[in-house]
């Protein structure tokens, strides 16, 4: 069973987000870059499938050279090889263009299952997985918390929690699965894993290598234009509810929620 995991590098969730002087990008100076947390679930699930069925796990990342580091992390967790799609012309591409380049990098590889995260915790689009699936003409199974590949390796049964119920969905393979929280507990890279990762193959591909036209990528080709980034609306400084005892405070709070906030 050959499995591909798409890996996006994102700012660590601890990061404070500051808006750059151009008003349309963020300041990246102090940012620590990490593997998108949802992609960690993808790597873990891929490794579990490999343990059961054999085969190879390939990690595909797209972005600047720094993404190498996150791909190495996935290799240290146990993935077999990495592909980094990197090209100056990709800088500022929107989700659709990103998906086109990723699909081009995947199309000639062998795969039964592709994992992506359900969304990147940076721009929160959750679009690349579906677009890659569409471009490769395979089914997509989004926001999945359980994956069971049939013994014969031809079909998969997954669980997708939706509002108020959980759907059990069956699909033919190959298919693309987007990982949701709850799918698994990602393993940590072990020290021997980290040592081994240094020797695992990691190939770089440019747009030219993929046979793609650079003019269709990058900030100028964006179909989704960013007009402006702003900080979140500031919340008004709140009230500390007064009272001598918990009962008094509770009584005052209930009154405020009823009379002032009008939510009770």
């Amino acid at each position: 069973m050959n499995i591909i995991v798409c890996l996006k590098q994102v700012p660590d969730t601890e990061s404070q987000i500051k808006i750059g002087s151009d008003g349309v990008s963020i300041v990246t100076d102090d940012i620590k870059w990490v593997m998108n947390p949802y992609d960690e679930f993808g790597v873990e699930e891929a490794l579990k499938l490999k343990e059961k069925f054999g085969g190879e796990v390939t990690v595909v990342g797209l972005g600047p050279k720094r993404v190498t580091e996150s791909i190495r992390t996935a290799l240290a967790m146990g993935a077999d090889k990495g592909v980094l799609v990197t090209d100056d012309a990709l800088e500022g591409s929107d989700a659709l263009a990103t998906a086109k380049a990723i699909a081009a990098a995947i199309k000639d590889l062998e795969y039964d299952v592709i994992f992506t995260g359900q969304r990147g915790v940076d721009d929160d689009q959750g679009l690349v997985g579906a677009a890659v699936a569409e471009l490769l003409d395979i089914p997509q199974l989004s926001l999945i918390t359980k994956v069971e590949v049939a013994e014969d390796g031809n079909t998969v049964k997954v669980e997708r929690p939706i509002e108020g119920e959980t759907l059990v969905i069956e699909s033919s393979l190959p298919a693309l699965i987007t990982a949701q929280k709850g799918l698994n507990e990602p393993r940590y890279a072990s020290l021997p894993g980290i040592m081994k990762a240094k020797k695992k193959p990691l190939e770089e591909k440019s747009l030219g290598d993929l046979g793609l036209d650079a003019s269709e990528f990058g900030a100028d080709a964006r179909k989704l234009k960013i007009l402006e980034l702003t900080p979140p609306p500031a919340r008004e400084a709140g009230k500390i509810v007064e009272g001598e005892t918990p009962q008094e405070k509770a009584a005052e709070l209930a009154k405020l929620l009823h009379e002032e906030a009008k939510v009770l």
Partner: protein
Amino acid sequence: MAQGVWTIAEQRDGAIRKITYEIVSEGRRLADALGQELTVVLLGSNIKDKAGELGQYGADKVLVCDDPKLDPYTTDAYASVISGLVKEGDPAILLLGASVEGKDLSGRLAAKLDVAMAQDCTVFAIEDGNLVATRPIYAGKAYAKVTFENSFPQMGTARPNVMSLVEPDASRSADIADADFSLDDGALKTKVVDVVKDESGKIDLTEADKIVSGGRGMKGPENYNILEELADLIGASVGASRSAVDAGWRPHSDQVGQTGKVVSPNLYVACGISGAIQHLAGMSTSKVIVAINKDEDAPIFQKADYGVVGDLFDVVPALTEEVKKYL
């Protein structure tokens, strides 16, 4: 030239979901701003009798796609039918809800149509005849105002619980038509084989009007009953911080935050939650935030409209008693 606003209705078991009324209401406002028509596409099996309701919320037209293969929802069937209709109808704007189904469908649809899409928006507006969308990014640590370039339809999904509902008007009615579509069986590669209902009967956090959330301060899974009692009384759903989820006290689906659910209730009550940046990110679009925490320096108080400094094991049960006066 592309004309009109289209929204995709979401229904489950034949009942229209609230998110649908939200996007139909928003679609009506955008259509009015453009001076164009609002069309709602309704898909399902034996669903046509629901089309009238959509008219009362402002639809000018309802395009009905009635087929047993369209119930229950599957990505392949819906994306295939809707992309065909959109190519044919050429709307200027296409709106969906950012529910689980809407997120799943919108991504595939955008890719099929090869258009840009703005996911999980909190504001839509028309500027110079074009759609401008505002969406939280970095889980709400910043907001992006976006527009579309050579990309029709201009496509967006709306965060649940954010768009205001119009009052349904019983005197309004839509022009209801059967859509002309075909569905190729061979193209359907996925199938829903089972549906497991959530026994709690609680509204999902993303759609809840009120949420009572508990963090590490709850000290153990057995103590959530005090939150459940308050929640039951005021019609709230119960959420949790990641610490509570990671400790195994609450299911993954209850986690609020940057790597959990992003929620926008009218009332969010955080009990024993410190207010880490990842948690705040997931609930900062709540309308009214209450924090109950024994540490007066907890960062959650900086975001709370009402803060109670005190032991939650005293305050929460007392609050449960006090709210009874107002119900």
